[in-house]
């Protein structure tokens, strides 16, 4: 599949300390500046110290795509011991670039050249030597390799110069000079080489109408929070959510807003709810273990009808699990966690732009429906970078609250008054005429504790029904169908980051002549039953791929709608492979499965 001429995936692989992530970063910034769409995902070693493996993958395209490619076009090895397992990712006629005189002496078999497949094009270069000649040190190896890739594929040299200068602008001038020299030396070498590859990079697409921003999922959440006017943030550090907090504690004070590290996750959400009760937009962010601690507080937010926003970036579980691996196994906790019937809104964006939008919409929804809203990401989505282009006209509502109407004299304000839409006008502390007490106990219209049967039944219904309006909330797509219209052989239902790989697999299946469609589901709770049912009606077989062991969303869908789905579950700690989904589509469509290339 080629997308608008340009579709190139480049992987740098090396040890921590080789500058692997740094060159990947320069590549994605430069390509975004040149006007391409970029999606990138880096893998770091779990340990802070040592020489663990770093992989930086960047996919450069003309149009927006939703996932990384299964196969890499160019692999650059900065450390063969780490790069060898990735050699098989490179496609036919793809390039493998490595040092012909590596840093340390190697035995036969330790050199990547011995691990290439026929058809892959090797470029054995004197990377270290060039670096030493250009800068007097071997520390420019990563830049030489990057320059070589840019020269070989004819990428815009001047854009790289700009980005290199920007990246090192706080360092002494010599740093920019050396890095540029190393890059240029590599570039000249690459430009002189013969390109065997059949794909070369096309001209960038026509300039987008709006500014492109390079954001990770977590930084998009931060931008969404700021754009929605967040006033207070409370959090406790946990991978992979910590970077949300680190950016907010930096950015919020600049705007006169308050952000605080609390003593634990219970306090983080308690303070978020306290601030929400006091009438300001507030949020917290965590991962599965933190969400588990927050469960009791979620119930309070539901019962007391106080808005709260909780960002959750999932990692491998249960318990401390796999902190630096991705997974989608906290869905049940997000949707059901807590005591009693505690319905809440759960949004799961499928790409970085969606992280921004769901973040902003979460504040609107929490306020409008007076409820907790959980935005569910995962490590893969939190940490991956994409070019995000949104119209500056797309804004979030500054206030979505149904405000108290002062009671007539002699009448007492009813905080939990019955209304047609189940949403009661809300007073906030400081407002005269609105005094009331909220409680986690069941209560009557006034907020007074009560355990009468009719009150508990009415109030349970109120809390449930008011959320049903959320599926029509303006400005957010909660389900969307892609691919073939009408009846299809296989319909893929996907959520969260796995939607990207599902879409890619669906398009490949269509290329093979399978009638196929995919639906992304962004609102996980309350479940958008109607569009999901219609989608399932149109498919002979429904496939639901997700990164958890038991099929949590499959359980919710089939339990709620009373119909079976084909589950595809795995927990490798890494994103699902497009090939695995594709094979499952082939199988369900009665075609032969094929081995991955």
């Amino acid at each position, binding site marked *: 599949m080629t997308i608008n001429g340009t579709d190139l995936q480049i992987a740098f692989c090396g040890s921590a300390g080789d500058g692997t992530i740094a060159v990947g970063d320069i590549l994605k910034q430069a390509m975004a500046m040149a006007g391409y769409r970029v999606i990138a995902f880096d893998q770091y070693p779990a340990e802070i110290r040592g020489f663990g493996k770093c992989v930086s993958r960047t996919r450069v395209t003309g149009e927006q795509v939703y996932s990384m490619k299964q196969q890499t076009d160019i692999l650059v090895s900065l450390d063969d011991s780490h790069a060898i397992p990735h050699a098989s990712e490179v496609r036919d006629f793809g390039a493998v670039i490595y040092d012909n005189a590596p840093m340390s002496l190697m035995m036969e078999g330790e050199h990547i050249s011995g691990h290439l497949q026929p058809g892959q094009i090797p470029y054995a270069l004197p990377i270290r030597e060039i670096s030493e000649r250009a800068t007097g040190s071997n520390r420019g190896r990563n830049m030489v390799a990057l320059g070589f890739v840019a020269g070989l594929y004819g990428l815009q040299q001047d854009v790289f110069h700009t980005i290199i200068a920007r990246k090192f602008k706080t360092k002494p001038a010599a740093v920019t000079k050396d890095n540029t020299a190393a890059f240029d030396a590599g570039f000249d070498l690459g430009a002189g080489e013969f390109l065997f590859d059949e794909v070369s990079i096309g001209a960038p697409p026509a300039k987008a109408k709006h500014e492109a921003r390079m954001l990770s999922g977590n930084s998009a959440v931060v931008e969404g929070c700021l754009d929605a006017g967040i006033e207070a943030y409370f959090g406790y550090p946990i991978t992979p959510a910590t970077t949300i907090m680190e950016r907010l504690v930096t950015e919020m004070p600049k705007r006169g807003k*308050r952000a605080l590290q609390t*003593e634990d996750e219970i306090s983080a959400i*308690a303070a978020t709810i*306290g*601030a929400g009760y*006091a009438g300001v937009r507030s949020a917290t962010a965590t991962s599965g273990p933190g969400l588990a601690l927050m469960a009791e507080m979620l119930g309070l937010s539901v019962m007391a009808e106080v808005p709260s926003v909780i960002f959750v970036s999932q990692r491998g579980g249960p318990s401390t699990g796999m902190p630096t691996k991705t997974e989608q196994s906290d869905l049940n906790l997000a949707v059901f966690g807590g005591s009693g019937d505690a319905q809440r809104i759960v949004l799961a964006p499928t790409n970085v732009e969606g992280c921004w939008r769901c973040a902003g919409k979460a504040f609107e929804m929490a306020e409008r429906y007076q409820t907790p809203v959980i935005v569910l990401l995962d490590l893969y989505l939190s940490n991956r970078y994409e070019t995000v282009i949104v119209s500056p006209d797309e804004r979030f509502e500054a206030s979505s609250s149904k405000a108290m109407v002062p009671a007539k004299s002699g009448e007492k304000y009813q905080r939990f008054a019955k209304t047609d839409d189940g949403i009661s006008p809300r007073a906030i502390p400081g407002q*005269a*005429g609105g005094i009331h*007490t909220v409680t986690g106990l069941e209560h009557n219209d006034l907020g007074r504790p009560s355990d009468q049967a009719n009150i508990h039944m009415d109030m349970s219904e109120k809390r449930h029904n008011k959320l049903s309006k959320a599926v029509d909330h303006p400005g957010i797509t909660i389900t969307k169908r892609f691919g073939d219209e009408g009846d299809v052989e296989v319909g893929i239902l996907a959520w969260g980051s796995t939607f990207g790989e599902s879409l890619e697999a669906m398009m490949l299946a269509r290329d093979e002549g399978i009638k196929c469609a995919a639906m992304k589901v962004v609102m996980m709770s309350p479940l958008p039953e109607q569009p999901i049912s219609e989608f399932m009606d149109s498919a002979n077989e429904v496939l639901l791929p997700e990164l958890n062991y038991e099929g949590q969303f499959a359980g919710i869908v089939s339990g709620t709608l009373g119909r079976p789905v084909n589950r595809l579950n795995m927990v490798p700690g890494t994103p699902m492979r497009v090939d695995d989904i594709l094979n499952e589509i082939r199988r369900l469509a009665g075609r032969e499965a094929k081995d991955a290339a």
Partner: protein
Amino acid sequence: MTAELKEPVYLEEKLKDIQDSGRLDFRSGSLPTWCPGCGYYSMTEGVTNSLNELGLKNENVVCVSGIGCASRFPFFVDVYGFHTLHGRTLPVATGIKTANDDLTVVVVGGDGDGFAIGGGHIPHAAKRNVDITYLLFDNGIYGLTKGQTSPTSSMGFKTSTTPYENREQPLKPLMMVLSYGASWVGQAYAGHQHHLAGMIKKAIAHRGFSYLHILSPCVTFDKTDMTYQNMNMAVRPLPEDHDSSDQMAAMIEAGKTDAPGLGVLFEEIRPTLSDNLDAIATSAGADIKAKTAQAAE
């Protein structure tokens, strides 16, 4: 003996006097549901009078409570209230105060709420110097759940969960909060209502985290230990020469749990959480003065 004749007191007149004094302004329509004789009745008087005397507006006060008999309090006062979860008063109150500095936040809870399930929050509210008032009602027992042992139950005390007697040493809450860095620490006794009311007023007036430890008998589940009779004998005023700016002197007084000293053990003025958050915003380049001026408009 012949009774002396007095002027008859007419209830309505008396009521009008009370109303005119403003003392009922902070009472809600709901009457307290505590057992007759419970020490907690003292807080209704103490808090409502203090709020009135401090000239606060009802709508600018928020009462935050946990779960327990003491925590029922917000329903009995006419201010904004948040009856939260067991043990989670302080972080909720921190959120409220962080969101709106203009609110006066009064936290109420029991000994179990504060020092068992919620024990992890007190150090942090104290060290941050959140400008709130924490009224901790210590009855040495779990009242609401009908009489189990608490972190402040004394050794040898028999409860439904320590049927063979409590063998754990009780916590010393005042020493704890002093070492946590609370900027105002005091002790009062429900049996000395007048003194208690004065202490509540001082605690609320303090700018910063104030911790008031209130010894309050549970007449229903404690017939032997922390009874009015025993407490009346045990409590004493703090020595007249106690220096409330001396943290070590306060520590020594705080340790005397057999003869609890009533009064202000310690007080200091230092930046509050909000002061510090504003300072952070200022160093980040925000114009905080403009923000507050705007809010005042």
